[in-house]
């Protein structure tokens, strides 16, 4: 039986911001169906940039991006891929722009061509799934930071994506909300890549953990050695211990 193509495949990606030094040089990454990847790395390593490259918000200088078995070359390929990939932004205020929660969650389904009644139904159902019943008519600017994060997740889930790209979803969440978030992720039958600086959270949510450093992806085995030391200042960067 031929293996299913990876959901997302990056090969040989190079990228630099205008006037900046090269951020990636020949980066490879693969997300297979059912896989749950964790991605960590120092501030400014390019984790957010990597997500934006995957959905075509930024264009690589070199390399190829594939999603769901077909190459993504021009804007229309990316537009089609974005319907199936949900990207959670690092800052929830970027993600939520409608006056009320319901409007925001229904925005995606409406864009996918659903009727207002269907979109409203999908939005209400998704909000209930995340334990956000009764939030429908709340103005976004009245939500707390954690509530905004959950509503952001709802806006993605309402579009029934096949892949989630989560950029620091637990940033600013308290332990209880974090546990709730984790619980939701584990219940979802969905593949995802999750960026987080909290290795504890990554270990609980992801099956494989990669680190992004110096423009390359370091695989699990290269960082497993250091799993036990996640509490010290070097974080997940490869480094040596002086015993």
């Amino acid at each position, binding site marked *: 039986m031929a293996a299913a193509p990876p959901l997302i495949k990056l090969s040989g990606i190079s990228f630099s911001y205008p006037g900046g030094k090269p951020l990636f040089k020949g980066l490879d990454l693969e997300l297979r169906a059912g896989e749950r990847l964790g991605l960590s790395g120092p501030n400014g390593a390019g984790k957010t940039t990597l997500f934006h490259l995957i959905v075509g918000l930024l264009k690589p200088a070199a390399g190829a991006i594939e999603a769901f078995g077909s190459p993504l070359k021009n804007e229309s390929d990316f537009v089609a891929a974005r319907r199936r990939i949900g990207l959670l*932004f690092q800052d929830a205020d*970027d993600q939520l*722009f409608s*006056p009320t929660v319901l409007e925001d969650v229904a*925005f995606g389904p409406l*864009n996918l061509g659903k009727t207002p009644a269907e979109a409203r139904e999908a939005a209400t159902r998704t909000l209930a799934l995340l334990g956000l019943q009764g939030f429908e*008519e709340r103005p976004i600017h009245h939500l707390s930071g954690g509530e905004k994060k959950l509503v952001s997740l709802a806006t993605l889930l309402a579009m029934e994506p096949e892949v989630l790209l989560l950029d620091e979803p637990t940033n600013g969440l308290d332990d209880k909300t974090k546990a709730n978030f984790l619980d939701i992720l584990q219940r979802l039958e969905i593949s995802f890549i999750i960026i987080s600086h909290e290795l504890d959270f990554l270990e609980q949510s992801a099956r494989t953990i990669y680190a992004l450093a110096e423009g390359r992806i370091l695989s699990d085995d290269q960082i497993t050695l250091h799993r036990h030391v996640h509490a010290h200042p070097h974080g997940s960067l490869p480094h040596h211990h002086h015993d």
Partner: protein
Amino acid sequence: MLPEPLPLPDSPFRRIDPRLRIVTAVLFSFAVALASEWAALGAGFGCAWLAIILCGLSPWRVLKRIAPAFGFILFLWAVLPLTVPGPALLRLGPLPLSAPGIALAGGITLKAAAILPAITLLIGTLPVATIGHALQRLRVPEKLVYLLLFCYRYIFVIEEEYRRLERAARLRSFRPGTNLHTYRTYAYLIAMLFLRAALRADQVHRAMLCRGFHGRFHTLEEIRFRATDRYWALALAIPPGIVTALQWLLLHP
């Protein structure tokens, strides 16, 4: 900052087509703004406040909501009686207060006291999202409508960013004064605010693209013109009708 919509007690008035309310507000404002006869202005004033009381809105809260506008009107009272030429009505020490000046200031005050409560009742009680959709259904250009909606959503974010920046400056012992350092600091602060707003706009656009946005907004709200709205349309036409009719009759006796 931006006030929330005033809560309107549930009544048949609350359930009428919001487009009707917006159109009425526009018609009434024009009728009163263009009127010049005292009787017409007085009728407009009476209609507005009578409607507020009939709809169960507290006149006191409406007054508080529109109070800031009267600061401007106070300024007109200070200036117009002194500057509009004409025979003096009374004298304030050596200063003659001209009759046309006082009449002008009085007219403007009465117009404001009629139009502002009417708009507060008709539009100020609608959620912003509903106003946006109603405007869209009234074929107001989409760009303008979304400018309104985005303003409502992001003015709070930008205000919060301003406070953060200002707090950061204060925490580092910044004391505003009248000196170059203060001006420069405020200039930086404002420049930073603009920059952040622009970056934010960029990110929001990206987030919208990720959720399948392709240049057209769709709306959830289904605004319908019901059978009873026909009677409401007639009823709501009365106040602007009275004002216009009085103005017309008094000008062409």
